[in-house]
């Protein structure tokens, strides 16, 4: 976590899950150590179902090439 507009004291933490509050800006640095396709999603899991479809809404995947 490189920069947080709301919690500057949290900068420098290494996280796999974190909140982003309304109007907050977070900057993250990612250094992949293995290739593959991995999910990136809101862990408030209500937000990964939408319009009666799962997965939907705040769910995407990240492709890391070899």
């Amino acid at each position, binding site marked *: 976590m490189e920069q947080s507009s709301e919690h500057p004291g949290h900068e*420098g933490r290494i*996280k*796999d899950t974190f909140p982003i509050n309304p109007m907050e800006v977070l900057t993250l640095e990612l250094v992949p150590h293995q290739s593959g396709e991995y*999910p990136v999603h809101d862990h408030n899991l209500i937000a990964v179902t939408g319009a009666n479809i799962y997965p939907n809404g705040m769910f995407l995947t990240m492709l890391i090439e070899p």
Partner: protein
Amino acid sequence: MTRRILFLVFLTGSFISLGQQVVNHQLIARNLGEKEMHDGVVLRTFGFAQSFSEQPPIPGPTLYANEGDSVVLDLFNVSQGAPHTIHLHGLDVNQENDGVPHLSFEVHHMEHGYYYFVAPHPGTYFYHCHVVSTIHVQAGMYGVFIVKPADGSNITWDGGYPYSQEKLYTMSEMDPLWHEDSVMEHDHDTTQTIHEVSIPEYHPSYFLVNGQSEQQLLEPDIALQTAKEEVSFLRMANIGYLANRVTFPEELNAKIISTDGRPIVNPEISDTLWISPGERYGVLIEPIVDLIDSIEISYVNMNTLTSEEIQYVPVLVSGTNGLNEALIKRTFELYPNPSADQFYIKSGGQPYDGIKIYDAMGRLVHVENHNYMDAEIMDINMDVAKGIYTVEILLNRAILDTLKWINR
């Protein structure tokens, strides 16, 4: 499957020689679990069990490995329903072992699936099913995976903080409507990567710590029992759909030292901690005085930022007495009995903070609240009809003792 068995042989051969171990865990996925809540209501659950004779516990069994161990998880799906997976949240596994069904594999009814990884940084992680996770996690398919340092000792990580005991508190919630068959029996066409589901608005009515709530939190395995100047390591983990605001008694000197399997470089001394869904925090506790108090866990709706419920984890810091003894010791006396509109409660030195009196029909007729009342004798006066009454003695809203009183 053959390839996986060969891989296991390879792991066994290569790592044991380095002094590290192969750790095997089996989890049996079930779809017809039943969980009795604190008020006696029974909800249908999904979950992970370790034997066929038990209900799947919620949370699932806590799994352990040491840093550098080769871990093999055998997921056996005996659910007669949807496929399941094990997603290893935060454990940095490769794509094939990540348990996201359309990106790795899913395990169908009466099949085994095997997951392989090397236990990474010491810390607290989750495992949970990633098939229609919105429903399956709420249904109960989650647990904690703990990685200890390579030698398995009670130190937070190599070069970290030594401690004498650790406690795990996993927070979640349950909404009974989500445990109806109409929600749980969702579409699972395995040729599709997306599924049609129907979920109600989320209004949980059970707010859980280690699957327990309200008076269940008085059980000795939940309470934090420690002594002055003894160091305890708390692993706090939220796998619910609400955020937690945790408030520690100031006297515990809570220090937030790690999160999501990594040390926090500048540990934070704070009596409050916010934990969003999916996050884990490591908290070091080193009390300086004896006390009886509680850790307050608020369940916060993230859309409105309002607290929906508070649960209390009892804390007892004492050089000599065990919490068990302190909480279970029934030292209260009510006298004279029978009497007329007045009696005394003798506490035997046991702190309490409230009294509730119910009539024979179960109606609440009288309440007394105090701040940690520890007066030896208390005088109760009221004007109620003749009859038999039940008198509850409370601490942190939990019932310490129940006495009968006859008003004549």
